[in-house]
């Protein structure tokens, strides 16, 4: 009897600490809402529809930041997805066993490099290189809405490139896990029917599509919230443009740049509200992505155990 109650104490004690994790997530939502109340009350929904960001006049519209965040993240996804999937396939299906662990380590190192280091490299190496590409572009192409504006180097293209590099390791490591959960028999069956390598892998990819979409969305969530590297190369100009060469601005970047300079309550509240929306968007994207990955790996888990697949160990 006493032992029973001691076990209950243990459960309640550890559970109470675990509850802290849940409470933090709630507290983030509550605190950000509380701090952004002045802005929410003053602007309402127009905050998200207007383009004017004028701290001096006290007018705040966040549309340019939402645009910049979405545009840069989507571009980054377009660049990184094929590369990340290629890596995942190469590592899990094609490469010799000796190369597997070193390649996993190297791609994970891409994720380990601090954002600020990417930013520093971006400012002094990538931006000049992009500027050189921009200036050497023929005039005929410069007429397109995608390439208008002065060739500054700082701008959407640099941001998208750096973001795609930073997102690759996330998408590729999750896709690799997902591919590994596709039963071997599925590929063997394809080969037995005379499929080429490409056809067998295509079938495996199709089989794993839910999880792979989840992996891509996980990368998207990372790209949306990425701050330092983007802040340092995107040019920080709150103006909506479709041009890859135009300096633009993201939600995370405007918070990073202007928060300590914000003098009045309304300005601070507007920045916090920007953060609140960033929080809500990433929350939705990440939850959906986890749901997809989870439904994929869960439905395959029994098969996995039966096949007793080797449990490789990526470091944490």
């Amino acid at each position: 009897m006493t032992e029973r109650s001691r076990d209950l104490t243990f459960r309640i004690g550890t559970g109470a600490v675990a509850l802290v994790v849940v409470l933090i997530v709630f507290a983030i939502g509550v605190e950000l809402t509380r701090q952004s109340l002045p802005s929410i009350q003053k602007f309402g929904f127009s905050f998200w529809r207007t383009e004017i960001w004028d701290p001096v006049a006290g007018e705040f519209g966040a549309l340019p930041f939402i645009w910049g965040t979405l545009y840069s993240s989507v571009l980054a996804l377009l660049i990184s997805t094929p590369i990340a999937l290629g890596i995942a396939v190469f590592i899990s299906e094609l490469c010799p066993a000796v190369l597997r662990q070193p390649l996993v380590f190297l791609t994970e190192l891409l994720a380990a490099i601090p954002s600020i280091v990417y930013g520093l490299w971006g400012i002094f190496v990538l931006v000049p290189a992009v500027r050189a590409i921009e200036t050497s572009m023929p005039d005929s192409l410069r007429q397109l809405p995608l390439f208008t504006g002065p060739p500054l180097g700082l701008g959407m293209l640099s941001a998208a490139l750096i973001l795609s590099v930073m997102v690759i390791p996330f998408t590729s490591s999750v896709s690799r896990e997902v591919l590994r959960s596709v039963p071997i028999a599925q590929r063997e069956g394809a080969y037995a029917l005379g499929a080429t390598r490409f056809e067998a892998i295509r079938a495996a990819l199709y089989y794993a599509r839910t999880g792979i979409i989840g992996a891509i969305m996980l990368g998207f969530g990372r790209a949306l919230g990425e701050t330092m590297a983007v802040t340092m190369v995107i040019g920080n100009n709150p103006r909506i443009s479709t041009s890859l060469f135009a300096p633009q601005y993201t939600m995370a970047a405007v918070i990073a740049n202007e928060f300590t300079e914000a003098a009045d309550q309304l300005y601070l509240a507007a920045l916090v509200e920007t953060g609140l929306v960033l929080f809500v968007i990433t929350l939705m994207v990440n939850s959906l992505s986890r749901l997809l990955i989870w439904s994929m790996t869960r439905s395959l888990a029994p098969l996995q155990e039966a096949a007793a697949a080797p449990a490789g160990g990526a470091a944490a």
Partner: protein
Amino acid sequence: MTRTRRRKLLSSLFVAFCGSAVVVALTPLAFVLFFVVSQGARAVNLEFFTHMPTPVGEAGGGMANAIVGTLILTSLAAMIAVPIGVISGVYMSEYAGTRFAALVRFAADTLNGVPSIVIGLFAYAVVVVPFKQFSALAGGFALGTMMIPIIARTTEELLLLVPGSMREGALALGATRARAVFSVVLPAALPGIMTGIVLALARIAGETAPLLFTAFNNRFFNIRLTQPLSSLTVQVFTYATGPYEDWHRQAWAGALVLVTIVFACSLAARFATRRLERMHGRA
């Protein structure tokens, strides 16, 4: 016949594409490392580690205060995150099937995905606003918040790897659940958990965004926790975006120090996990 050849060609093209994807992704890694090492090596010197920043515009000086600052901030973060993270991990693995464990797991994954700048805003609201001052504590709180989910999930995963027979043996000897966990299961997983903590620390030490308006920055040497505190990352940011040539030089030196820390930790962790895996006989 031609159809077969076409299929084979397509297949080889696909294999080539996948191989080149690896090369394309590793090229920026090589470039970043090359520039950080070559520029950083030229810039880093003893003065960098032992001296304070010089007045604005004057060449020379170092980041002694920022290095100490980063150490203080990561220690504070660890003090907050290790107990909460490990115990939450214990709960998730001990009561793995329960609905509350699933909720905690979901919360940890959610927290892990929250952008670091948003964590900074949260720490600002919770610590900076009430005390009306940027402080080392606020910075440590922000970094600790980021660290909790990483440690919790690592602990959970590693505890689940401990063979059930060990726990059952302890319970069969009459140990309570708490006793079985803290004297048998947790020690068995401890090396792995330590590795996870080291990796989490390495990641946290490289964070900038959550410190911008929590720990803020400080040009002077400070160890008081209620005062603004400089850190390597924020200092690199300030110097990289500043106008002076010598600042840029020091930014590269700072980047080299950061990358070295991260690299050393990942490598150490990797060797440790390898050994662990061999010890536990995992294929």
